């Protein structure tokens, strides 16, 4: 499978294994094609998780990770791509309906926008919150003071 | 005046028939007091029995084994703030619980606790009962409407739809029981409650066993319909907390709410009394015709006293089992007094029964007879009350559409079928 994709996408795709788990490092431009192909051709029909990692010192700061599982093949694969801060990425809701809330959470925590998502708004944090907590520049004790003061009527949540 | 009062004693008619207003009033007051006491007992039994079903103890602290809990609850409800929503219709809000209470208590005028122990023996007793108990629906709708909030309104409409649908099945089941009263030599039936019980006595069979299984099925339909009539589990969607609408009594607090609860329990007792009268032989002791010797009469007349003595014995056992810590001293003493009370009531009843049997004191005989009638009636009603609590502990709730489906699509056809079959069998057998 890897060879087939490698031959098609050439340098845009890099397959590796660490500790027995396979993952594909793909170029941003290959999303959502590669995801669609994984779903339709390789039968990765279950999207386990979508998440992101923030590397503030890198040029392309965010790593968006899809963890996929195939029921027929009993196999798991990770697909990673790197995007820059402020860039957006295509939503995979049309491929796996699970992605709806998972992408909302990534948006909520990191601020990565997903194009084509039917309802991209915050899910865990209140709607008016400013800031994206899981980024590395958001302090561990930091809160959106303005929101807390307006809505909870207290000085600070700390 | 005293003549008027005394002339009734010794009569074998109900005060209504004898035209004695004083005693009718007395009976009404006795019934009112009795039902209120019964509701308090029912409250305690419900909490204790429900708790024991759920492997808990229930109230244990307010009085020994929680015996004073109903008083505490009543006191609490009376002292609660009386909240009336500002937008509610004040007069109607005030009057709604009274309508429910009126409907529930008026039924008791026809319920026979004995052959002459009823307020009045109307010859349309059953019809009266059906009509008046339907007024309860009005109380509920009015309560929901007066609250001026759409959740109580939805709950009230649901409750009323439920009660109205099950009344149809209830009515048909009652009709088949009444038809059974006409299966005697003269072929005339009766709607009078006392005569229905007498018919069971003359025909020598409780209607629940007559034309088995027809009588039993009719009784079963009534048993289900009466649970739905009183909004009890498993038909208690309208007052369940985990559903969205909290029911017609949402906006009521304190004493007003307790009036609704009083009406509900009174309706439960009333409707169980109807079931007992129509199918279970009312005040008749077991086997009144089969075991008819005076010795049997005497034996069965000992039952009231023995029951109270048994209850007293249970209370004594409870007292003995109380922990002997000093903190429990008051509870021990309380339970002991309660045991003594029950025991003394039991002894008194035994005394009356024995005195009545020895035929020297006619008054004692009459007392003893009256007591046995009331006792057997109350025992049967108590079994129904226990069943109500048992249903509540065991079964989940019906969804509203399933509830309505059961009422219209299941109970109604079955009751019609039973009615027709009873008629056919009755004609064939006679």
């Amino acid at each position, binding site marked *: 499978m890897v060879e087939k994709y490698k031959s098609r996408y050439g340098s845009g795709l890099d397959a590796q294994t*660490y*500790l027995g788990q396979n993952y594909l490092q793909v170029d941003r431009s290959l999303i959502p094609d590669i995801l669609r192909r994984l779903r339709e051709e390789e039968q990765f029909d*279950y999207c*386990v*998780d979508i*998440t992101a*990692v*923030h590397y503030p010192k890198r040029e392309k700061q965010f790593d968006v990770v899809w*963890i996929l599982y195939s*029921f027929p093949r*009993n196999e*798991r694969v990770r697909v990673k791509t790197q995007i820059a801060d402020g860039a957006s990425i295509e939503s995979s809701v049309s491929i*796996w*309906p*699970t992605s*709806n*809330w998972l992408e909302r*959470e990534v948006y909520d*925590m990191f601020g990565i926008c997903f194009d084509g998502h039917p*309802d991209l*708004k*915050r*899910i*865990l944090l*209140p*709607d*008016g919150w400013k800031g994206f*907590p*899981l980024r590395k520049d*958001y302090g*561990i004790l930091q809160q959106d003071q303005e929101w807390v003061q*307006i*809505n*909870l009527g207290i000085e600070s949540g700390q | 005046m005293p003549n008027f009062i005394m002339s009734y004693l010794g009569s074998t008619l109900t005060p209504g028939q004898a035209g004695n207003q004083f005693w009718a009033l007395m009976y009404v007051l006795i019934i009112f007091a009795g039902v209120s006491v019964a509701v308090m007992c029912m409250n305690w039994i419900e909490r204790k029995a*429900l708790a024991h*079903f*759920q*492997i808990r103890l229930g109230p244990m602290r307010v009085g020994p084994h929680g015996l004073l809990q109903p008083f505490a609850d009543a006191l609490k409800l009376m002292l609660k703030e009386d909240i009336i929503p500002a937008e509610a219709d004040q007069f109607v809000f005030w009057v709604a619980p009274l309508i429910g209470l009126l409907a529930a208590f008026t039924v008791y005028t026809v319920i026979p606790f004995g052959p002459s122990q009823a307020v009045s023996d109307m010859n349309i007793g059953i019809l009266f009962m059906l009509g008046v108990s339907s007024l309860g629906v009005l109380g509920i709708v009015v309560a929901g409407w007066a609250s001026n909030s*759409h*959740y109580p309104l939805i709950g009230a409409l649901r409750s009323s739809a439920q009660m109205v649908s099950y009344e149809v099945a209830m009515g048909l089941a009652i009709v088949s029981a009444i038809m059974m009263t006409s299966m005697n030599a003269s072929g005339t039936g009766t709607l009078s409650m006392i005569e229905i019980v007498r018919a069971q006595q003359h025909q020598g069979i409780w209607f629940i066993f007559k034309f088995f299984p027809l009588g039993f099925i009719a009784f079963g339909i009534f048993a289900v319909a009466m649970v739905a009539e009183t909004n009890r*589990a*498993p038909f*208690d*969607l309208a007052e*369940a*907390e*985990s*559903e*969205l609408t*909290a029911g017609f009594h949402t906006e009521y607090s304190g004493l007003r709410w307790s009036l609704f609860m009083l009406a509900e329990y009174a309706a439960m007792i009333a409707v169980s009394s109807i079931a007992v009268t129509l199918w279970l032989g009312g005040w008749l002791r077991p086997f009144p015709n089969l075991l008819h010797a005076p010795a049997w009469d005497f034996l069965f007349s000992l039952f009231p006293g023995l029951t109270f003595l048994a209850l007293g014995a249970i209370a004594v056992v409870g007292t003995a089992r109380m922990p002997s810590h000093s903190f429990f001293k008051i509870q021990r003493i309380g339970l002991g007094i309660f045991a003594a009370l029950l025991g003394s009531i039991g002894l008194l009843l035994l005394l009356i029964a024995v005195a009545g049997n020895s035929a020297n004191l006619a008054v004692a005989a009459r007392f003893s007879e009256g007591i046995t009638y009331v006792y057997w009636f109350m025992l049967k009603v108590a079994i129904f009350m226990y069943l109500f609590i048992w249903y509540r*502990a*065991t*079964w*989940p*709730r*019906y*969804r*509203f*559409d*399933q509830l309505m489906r059961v009422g219209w699509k299941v109970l109604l056809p079955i009751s019609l079928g039973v009615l027709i079959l009873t008629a056919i069998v009755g004609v064939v057998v006679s």
Partner: protein
Amino acid sequence: MSIPEKEGTSDLSPGTLGLGRASFEGSNLERETPGKAYLDSNELIINMGPQHPATHGVLRVILKLDGEKVLGTECVIGYLHRGVEKIAENRTYTMFNPYVDRMDYCAAVSNGLGYCEAVEKLMNVEAPPRAQYIRVILTELNRIASHQLWLGTHALDIGAMTPLFYTFRDREEILKIFERYCGARLTTHAFRIGGCQYETYAGFEKDVKNFLTFVAPKIDEYETLLTTNRIWLERTKNVGVISAADAIALGVTGPVLRASGVQWDLRKAQPYANYSRFDFEIPIGTNGDTYDRYLVRMMEMRQSLRIIEQAVDAIPEGPIMGKVPKVIKPPVGEIYHSIEAPKGELGYFIVSDGSTQPYRLRVRPPSFVNLQALDVMVRGLLVADVVAVIGTIDIVLGEVDR
């Protein structure tokens, strides 16, 4: 019920808790039918507030109704969001272990198992066999406890009050075993990275064996109360149906997926902690309705008993802690490890940068993903069924919100 005019009002203002007042601005349903929000023609938008009488936690569900029928739902979550993933980046691996229990607090042992196994994989160490057996026993006990809690609260939602007390009383025995083992009943922190810290106490095997004989008839008791009860059948059959294809597409896992007919259990598909040594079955259902989910969980409890029976007789001797350094510093890399928690697939995605603190720790919560399926399951049902369906998905808000 009215829509507040102020723009700055948010969902969490005190007036919006509970029934009645609700802020629907920004809600999907409000956007679909703008202006036509309440008591207009037949459509009604009502709010099942964050507080529930049946101990699900703080979940808010906005329902759009046509009379009694549900046209659409929207879940508002996040009331219990504590930022566990952010905390993980500021604690060492060992320090983070107790936090993990607090997510799915009804089944804390599984959470710990998943986390410890994920870190062990990252460190490339394996827990010794004795530790793995102890882990399996405690995890399966915890599965039974979680299902018992689920059964009690689910039955209470549908109106049967009594199973709640029965299941909680029987759950006490499991919690007593946990307490004797590690000191805590609910948030156990039972395992450590590399194995277990505590040796089994004297009498552990006896306790577990007594428990097995104690609880098997109790599970039968729950079944006699509910399984063939006509009212229970009517309330749960064909309620909240989700097809297998829908379930897979929505990423639903756990008993919900198995009730829809997909025979998939991580303990068999990708075994961990020596589960491949034990002989047990995976119950599946046929319809994917609430009744099937109930049956699947009851059978799962019995299968757990089977596993415990096999495990408790065969606990090997040996060390309980593997060779892990005192300071846990996994090499640079990332890993995803998941286990079959009572609620579904619980996964941990850990990115390590070589330091003592995780660089990114992502928890894949089963209840979060399962809750998405609520919308699909509930369309066309009546209002009274929504509570039943929420109960049958078996969510714990601590896990949904983290």
